[in-house]
């Protein structure tokens, strides 16, 4: 056996993905009884974009992790198909964000693959995260009950999406460079400030996300069981306190326990989501034959129910397994790193994406109280897609770093017989 690592062909996956996108858009093009050429054009553009993006990244960055990017491509393709079915205008915007996001992702990959832990810059990241979160309270307008959007000219963006990434980066730095419990104090205060700002801005989903990511990262970095349990206790107390203190938290819990009681008011969205999932059944109603119009926010937070309705529960379950594949690949990359910082950075991004998908999927199927948050890669939303793609870029960047280290090792030994 020779010691050369051959990367296996993933062309079959690319072909299947292209088939999926093209056939879905072909079906959408005759949906209303009239032929809509734009659907076909959109489908062709999206498939071509995915293929070009995949092979371009593969050419630019050796030892990139193929599977993470292929899974993400499938997720956003499903997302754009479903968004196009709901609103063509949104789908075009999402596609534009996808192109923009790819450029940003490439920059992130190049920065991450040749960087260390950013040292003192992390204090700046912390400050930046707090300023981003605080700015929403001052400058925001409310979308869907949460004050989390800022308008700049024609664009509106969600600062918390980017604060999330700054949070992961500073977490990785503090948890990898400190070891005395007291030296974590500034970092813990920072986390608490972030969460409080999010709860006050009524962005409960992101608050929950930051809490969960913090606990996961803290435990995996330090291995301190007692402090982690204490953290879970503080988190529980905080959750209970905000339940008592804020009416919007109370409402969320009430509509989770019995959405039918307030079917005409707050519980409407949950009930409609459940009805959609139920009417879809195992195999779905067929693409384009569901009723996403009946669900508020069907193209963003509630896209999972639309997918569940039109593609069926089996397809939705497969989608969840795709997220699992993403998580497992992320963990493999994290375990393969040299430095604790890199490992925590990748693991932080992976944990955050997985917790985020759990929070929103769990929310729409009424497993946990619903908190408005996007489904990574799938939901419509420029900030959300961009932030997911930056996290993808971080994961890929570290993967490339690992790969070039392994390559150096193999190159030194040459083609050796084993």
């Amino acid at each position, binding site marked *: 056996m020779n010691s050369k690592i051959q990367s296996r062909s993933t062309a079959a996956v690319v072909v299947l993905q292209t088939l999926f996108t093209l056939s879905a858009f072909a079906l959408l093009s005759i949906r209303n009884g009239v032929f809509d050429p734009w659907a076909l054009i959109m489908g062709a553009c999206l498939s071509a974009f995915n293929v070009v993006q995949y092979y371009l990244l593969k050419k630019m960055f050796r030892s990139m992790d193929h599977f993470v990017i292929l899974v993400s491509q499938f997720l956003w393709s499903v997302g754009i198909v479903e968004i196009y079915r709901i609103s063509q205008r949104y789908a075009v915007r999402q596609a534009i964000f996808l192109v923009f996001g790819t450029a940003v992702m490439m920059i992130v990959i190049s920065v991450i693959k040749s960087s260390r832990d950013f040292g003192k810059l992390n204090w700046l990241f912390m400050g930046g995260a707090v300023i981003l979160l605080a700015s929403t309270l001052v400058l925001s307008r409310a979308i869907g009950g949460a004050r989390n959007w800022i308008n700049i000219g024609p664009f509106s963006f969600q600062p918390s999406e980017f604060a999330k990434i700054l949070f992961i980066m500073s977490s990785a730095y503090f948890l990898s460079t400190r070891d005395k419990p007291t030296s974590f104090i500034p970092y813990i205060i920072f986390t608490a400030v972030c969460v409080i700002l999010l709860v006050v801005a009524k962005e409960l989903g992101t608050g929950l996300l930051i809490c969960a990511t913090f606990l996961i990262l803290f435990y995996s970095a330090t291995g301190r069981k007692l402090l982690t349990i204490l953290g879970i206790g503080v988190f529980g107390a905080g959750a209970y306190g905000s339940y008592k203190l804020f009416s919007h938290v109370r409402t969320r819990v009430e509509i989770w326990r019995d959405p039918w009681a307030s079917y005409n008011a707050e519980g409407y969205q949950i009930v409609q989501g459940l009805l959609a999932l139920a009417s879809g059944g195992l195999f779905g109603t067929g693409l384009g034959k569901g009723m996403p119009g009946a669900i508020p926010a069907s193209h963003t937070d509630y896209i999972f129910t639309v997918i569940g309705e039109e593609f069926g529960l089996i*397809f939705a379950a497969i989608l969840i397994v795709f997220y699992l594949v993403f998580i497992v690949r992320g963990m493999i990359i994290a375990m393969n790193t040299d430095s604790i910082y890199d490992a925590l950075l990748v693991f932080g991004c992976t944990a955050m994406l997985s917790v985020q998908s759990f929070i929103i999927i769990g929310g729409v199927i009424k497993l946990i109280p619903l908190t408005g948050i996007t489904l990574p890669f799938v939901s419509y939303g420029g900030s959300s897609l961009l932030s997911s793609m930056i996290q993808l870029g971080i994961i890929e960047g570290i993967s490339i770093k690992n790969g070039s280290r392994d390559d150096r090792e*193999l190159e030194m030994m040459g083609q050796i017989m084993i």
Partner: protein
Amino acid sequence: MLNSLYQVLAIGMKYWFIALAAAMLWLVISISGKEYRERKTVLSEVGNYIGYLEIVGGMEEEEGTRIGLARENTIGSGHNADIVVRDESIEKMHAHMAFDGNRLMFTPLTKKGTRINGRKAINSYPVRTGDIVQLGNVVFRIFLRPELEELYEQ
């Protein structure tokens, strides 16, 4: 007309989409599993080696072949040797190479047919990167990892 076509297709294609997604999932999982195992085997094997022997003369078709060196190896033409070199001029158990913590020691196990850098070798002798070892007619060049090579300087 187009509408009824759509109605039929939409029902039929839901199974197609599920099949596609399932096939893709299976492919991704199986390919990534295979690649992961292969990569791990190769890297852990290569990581265990402290260096390699490269055949530089005496066996024409094998020239350039690199053989990984573990911390301790026996070299010979017999089945029991760790590194088997099939050549008539080499004894069944010809030599022993072991890393003693600081240096890689080369010990001939036979009285004749062993040379280190052109000189006849009978006793144990430390070898390092670039040294040429000859067993019978076969000539090897030694490569040691640079980080182990540094131990020689101390």
